[in-house]
């Protein structure tokens, strides 16, 4: 190839972006589905000075910008944009319903993405990326979710030191340079179609992780969550409670075991139809034993109690929750009816742990609770015999390693396994 031809190549921005895509693909072959789903669209530098992706997965680039970068650095940018697609940042931003805060959302999304790219030691272009360490000043840490970072930044960041714009892939706000969603040559990818590609990518990532150990941990967790979604402990506790409350209460229901109060009317009218009676038992009672031995922080304990009260109220139980703080022996028995009372809750404790003592205290309650919820780290002796007074015992564990010690008559909810925030 002669010199002129080589120069021509060096000046073709489209070729440069495609070269970057090839390099990106060689780095992370398991995200190929998303990488190659991006449609490349050239825009004027005055309209867009870098690279951006829209909510229809079309990648817009400034020809000047891409020619100023090495293909290797551009490849990192492409992977960065692909991860916005992968994580559905536009859809998640819509859920938050704070459309004016799109820049803060972009910052939070970028910081999380760049942490994964930095971990893989990828080269960056001339524009310096936003990193979590730049946000450390505002107590942003690596284990936070994009949503977590977003809310933290909203609270504490008085002025924005950054102004990133990755395009409408982060917020579904249409930019001036974007093509129409149903453009003839380059139509945007429909949102339900994007979900199909995302599913495929998750599948590819998990497959890769079976044969090779080179998938970044953050990506693998994302893929596993898509293929085997976990339910947060709040949801799981709420579901468990709803079912147990329903079982205890029988709720209002119809029975044929007693005659209907209107049966006499039917007879008088000469009808032969048999009506059922309605039955509504007294509302179920809920008690909880909270481990105050010190290994679980006070704010976590209150957070848990608050959640429990919220769930019982939402399930239609207005009598509240009886709380028994317990270390080696039970503390003051209190009843809370609403979340506003959580702050007043006394949670004394410190030395030693024996949940058995707390359970025993609950057995002495009058009237007896139907459902007993225990929140503990699990480093405790358990009673040898099942407390048969309760129709259901739920144990919420803050430490997964103790799961095996919990007796089989209790239902276990794992606080950490089902509550990954990353």
């Amino acid at each position: 190839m002669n010199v002129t031809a080589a120069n021509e190549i060096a000046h073709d921005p489209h070729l440069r972006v495609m070269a970057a895509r090839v390099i990106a693909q060689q780095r992370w072959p398991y995200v190929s589905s998303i990488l190659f789903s991006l449609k490349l669209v050239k825009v004027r530098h005055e309209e867009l000075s870098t690279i951006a992706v829209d909510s229809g997965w079309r990648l817009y680039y400034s020809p000047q910008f891409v020619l100023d970068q090495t293909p290797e650095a551009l490849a990192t940018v492409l992977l960065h944009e692909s991860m916005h697609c992968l994580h559905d940042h536009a859809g998640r931003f819509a859920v938050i319903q704070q459309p004016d805060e799109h820049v803060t959302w972009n910052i939070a999304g970028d910081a999380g993405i760049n942490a994964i790219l930095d971990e893989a030691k990828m080269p960056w272009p001339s524009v310096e990326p936003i990193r979590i360490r730049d946000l450390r000043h505002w107590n942003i840490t690596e284990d936070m979710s994009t949503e977590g970072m977003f809310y933290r930044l909203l609270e504490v960041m008085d002025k924005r030191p950054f102004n990133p714009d990755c395009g409408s892939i982060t917020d579904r706000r249409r930019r001036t340079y974007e093509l129409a969603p149903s453009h003839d040559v380059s139509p945007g990818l429909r949102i339900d179609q994007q979900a199909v590609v995302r599913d495929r990518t998750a599948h590819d990532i998990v497959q890769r992780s079976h044969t090779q150990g080179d998938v970044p941990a953050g990506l693998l967790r994302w893929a596993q969550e898509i293929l085997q979604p976990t339910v947060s402990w709040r949801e799981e506790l709420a579901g468990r409670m709803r079912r147990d409350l329903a079982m205890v209460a029988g709720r209002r229901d119809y029975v044929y075991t007693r005659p209907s109060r209107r049966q006499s009317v039917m007879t008088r009218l000469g009808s032969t139809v048999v009506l059922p009676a309605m039955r509504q038992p007294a509302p179920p009672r809920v008690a909880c034993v909270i481990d105050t031995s010190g290994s679980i922080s006070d704010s976590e304990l209150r957070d848990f109690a608050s959640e429990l009260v919220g769930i019982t109220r939402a399930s239609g139980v207005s009598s509240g929750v009886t709380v028994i703080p317990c270390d080696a022996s039970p503390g003051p028995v209190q009843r809370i009816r609403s979340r506003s009372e959580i702050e007043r809750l006394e949670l004394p404790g410190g030395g030693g742990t024996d949940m058995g003592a707390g359970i025993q205290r609950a057995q002495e309650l009058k009237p007896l609770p139907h459902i007993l919820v225990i929140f503990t780290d699990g480093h405790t002796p358990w009673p040898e015999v099942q407390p048969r007074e309760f129709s259901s015992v739920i144990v919420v564990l803050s430490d997964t390693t103790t799961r095996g010690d919990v007796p089989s008559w209790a239902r276990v909810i794992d606080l950490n396994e089902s509550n990954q925030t990353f």
Partner: protein
Amino acid sequence: MGLDAGEVKCVATTDEYESTYRALEICIASRVPVILWGPPGQGKTSVIRAIAKHQDRHLEVLLASIREPQDFAGLPSIHDGRAHLVPPDWAVRLSEVSNGILFTDEVNTAPPSVQAALLRVSLDKVAGDCDLGQDTSVVAAANPPEQAADGWDLAPPLANRFCHLPWELPTEVVRDGFAGRWRHYGVPVPSEEAIEDALVRERVRVAGFLTARPDLATVLPKTASEQGRAFPTPRSWDMVSTLTAWATASRQTEGVIRILIRGCVGPGASAEYLTYRESLDLPDPEKVLGDPRSFALPLRTDQIYVVGAGVLAVLRNDTTAQRWHAAGLVLERIASGGHPDIAVSFARDWIAERPPGEMPDSAVLKALVPLLKEARLI
């Protein structure tokens, strides 16, 4: 990176609304029981009325939460010492017409005995002593338990009989609706032969998938709230084959098919199955190698990549000079089809398989070299 996959709570877009709407039409047309999950006041009833009108079918609307079990199971009445279950009027009306639709709203705020009675209606299409006919479609709607004050999760046996669709009105649809244009999407009802053909094909696919992934045949979810939704069982896989057959016979998009599969077997199993099913639709790599000039390039770029990867994989298993040249031609076709970057991603692997003494065709080189140079791979 938040692990919430973003789909649990979702602010719906018009695209998603359209796909869900079409999925609902397919469920109704194919007589697979369907349940819509969403907050109240989302226009579910009027959409179902529109669909009933489009499909020219009789519709009965009931509110389960204000009904009693005998409204579904029939009123016990004693005649000549024998108890009869007298059917309610809606059931009589449905049994008198053919192809009726029964829509029951607020099923999960109904007492358990009403839910149990409803189970028999949706499963056997029988109310009291009255047979509604197998041509009746069963549609239900429910408020998510976390949104309804006294809602509960469905019992797993009832949940597993339905295809679950999330239902939410996007703001654009509401805006246009108030301006006088509620959106309706008509799915054509395919011919019986078309459905029969598609059904045979889809059954084979599900069977093939379950042979490869027997662990996904039955997965009972661990938590109570998940058990009230879609999860894989042989029955829900059977629903998958029926619904995908109807969807392909009426030429719906992958987006609609995804929503239907997800609604039957839940998110995890559906993602796995959809990936498997899509790869079956792609050209067979061996056939592509046998006739590299005439195979049809898929429309979606991520599928073109899958075809390329498949060709390279079968080439690696059995490399001859002729197959190697054929693979080069495939890459050339991908490149000249507007995707040189996809072709170049395989170029290195392809060069590595070069049989001794063979040289690439000049057309192939011409298609690949500029980009290989730009990416500094050669």
